[in-house]
């Protein structure tokens, strides 16, 4: 009922859908930076959607399983294999006792979300199994995985057991989610944004640069945020703001004029002006940005952002229903 970390890779941590209700205490939502990918991967292996999985940054990881599991992953463009069989993103795969999962270095994108049937049995801390890497709690000992770690796994669900039977011969399921869900990484993506409270504090040149320019991801980026290099965004004033809430997707602009796109581990409050926010349906693409990548931004109306989110929720519901025959 466990897996062994043969190689942890660059940065691998246990993540689920994160912590809610604790912002008033300064606790970030955290969790998988692409929560949609984790939901989808969990559905593929017969887990409940919020089950804890692994978030693998840039690859170089290897895991060995002690018993039969179904595994699926979604995320960047990684070569993933078990023995000589390669595993495409978004497909359920049967692992037998002793099998090794290898996730090679990312060719494009930054992160892979790996769901393991039964889920990762890390203790629940503040309602979540996610690793808070800044405050060092949750996950496995509050830290990123290391070589030689043992990861406790939960019991396979009834649904998973049916799938294990069904995949004895073919091993890799032929069905998969929409390509955008399993492989959200894009070359030079355009992220859609809605205006932030301080949009009007930026001069016309800054707004023009923000909406028409190209930004490069700085090496100084992590699970808290992605720093963007490019034309400086200058404000009309230099007035200090009173700190208020920020959220994953918020793009804040410090006095340097170089924007920071916040991700799941971001602080709960910030005092820098918020020029815009990446919309929720584009956060999976944002989570795949890695140093050197280029990104652009395009404004959409808030109502359109909601419309897109609701469409995705409906599509996810349809996908859930569509999976049903494979688990019976």
């Amino acid at each position, binding site marked *: 009922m466990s897996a062994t970390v043969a190689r942890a890779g660059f940065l691998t941590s246990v993540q689920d859908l994160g912590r*809610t*209700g*604790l*912002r*008033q*205490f*300064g*606790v*970030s939502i955290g969790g998988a930076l692409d929560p949609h990918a984790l939901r989808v991967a969990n559905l593929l292996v017969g887990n409940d959607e919020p089950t804890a999985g692994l978030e693998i940054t840039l690859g170089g990881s290897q895991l060995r399983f002690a018993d039969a599991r179904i595994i699926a992953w979604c995320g960047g463009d990684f070569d993933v294999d078990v023995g000589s069989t390669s595993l495409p993103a978004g497909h359920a795969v049967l692992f037998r006792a002793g099998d090794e999962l290898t996730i090679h270095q990312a060719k494009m994108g930054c992160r892979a979300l790996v769901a393991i049937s039964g889920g990762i049995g890390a203790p629940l*801390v*503040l309602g979540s199994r996610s690793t*808070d890497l*800044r*405050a*060092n*709690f*949750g996950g496995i000992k509050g830290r990123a995985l290391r070589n030689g770690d043992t990861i406790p796994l939960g019991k396979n669900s009834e649904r998973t057991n049916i799938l294990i039977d069904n995949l004895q011969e073919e091993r890799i399921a032929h069905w998969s989610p929409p390509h955008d869900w399993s492989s959200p990484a894009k070359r030079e993506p355009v992220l859609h944004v*809605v*205006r*932030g*409270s301080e949009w*009007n*504090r930026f001069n016309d040149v800054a707004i023009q640069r923000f909406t028409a320019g190209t930004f490069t991801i700085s090496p100084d980026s992590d699970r808290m945020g992605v720093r963007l290099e490019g034309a400086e965004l200058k404000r*009309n*004033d*230099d*007035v*200090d*703001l*009173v*700190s*208020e*809430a*920020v*959220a994953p*997707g*918020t793009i804040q602009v410090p006095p340097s004029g170089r924007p920071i796109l916040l991700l799941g581990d971001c*602080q*709960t*409050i910030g005092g820098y002006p*918020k020029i815009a*926010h*990446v*919309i*929720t349906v584009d956060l999976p693409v944002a989570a795949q940005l890695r140093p050197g990548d280029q990104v652009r931004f395009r404004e959409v109306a*808030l*109502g*359109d*952002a*909601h*419309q897109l*989110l*609701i469409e995705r*929720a409906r599509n996810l519901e349809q996908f859930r229903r569509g999976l049903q025959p494979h688990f019976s």
Partner: protein
Amino acid sequence: MSGRRRANCELWFALDGCWFEIVPSHNLIGANTFAKLKADHALMEITPLGDSALIVRVRDQFADAPEQTLNEVLGTLRRIEDARIPGVIELAPAYTTIAVFYDPMRVVGAGAKPKGVFDWLAKRIREVVSDADQIRGDQIEMSLIEIPVCYDAEFALDLNEIARRSGLTAQEVVDLHSAAQYRVHCVGFTPGFPYLGGLPGKLATPRRAIPRKEIPAGSVAIGGTQSGIYPVKSPGGWNVIGRTPRRLFDPDKDPPALLRAGDRVRFHAITRGEFEKSIM
């Protein structure tokens, strides 16, 4: 303050009425203007924070009336909480605002049109927070929490610098810091980090030009006109004045943070011996 900046600020107030200054309002705009603005803002401003949260702005200013602002924020928070608006996931106060996080799907499930999620929520919120006078009369409950601090030289990394800037002796700085009563204006930065208002004016010290890469857990510090406590080891730019053996954040406890917005805080000096004893 330059005339240009002053003029600009007036312009923005007139246009949007939503920008804040950390400087007292009378330094920035005339008292009459401010009184008028206050009247204009009996209706709180509600603005989107991306597509899954919004911000309710209780007041434009904070520094001119921190206690009153904090009480109004907490009163407003309570009202939104009690209203149990469908789709609202969590609320988080900060200085002049309350952030309302929501699930757009559940808001639509409760009857909003997909393109009207924000307006639907803003209307529900306005219904419960429209009466600012009544909120001002709300009783705000607040705990008083005593925090022991060891101001020993080994912990008080910047005590001498604070003393030098303020023209006080180190002991006078400690006496002033531990005699004041503080109030938690906000919790953030790292889990459980309290931003404390009420620092005696003489002790105000700008943040360090170059932040330290690592400040030990429990460090009590001064940043500008506020005091704060680092609950977990983290980088930081505040001036460290001492260390508390009390745990400010414990993920195994419910609630995990010792302090929440609105709480009153007092520091009292302890010796190195007392510190060592209570940390065991």
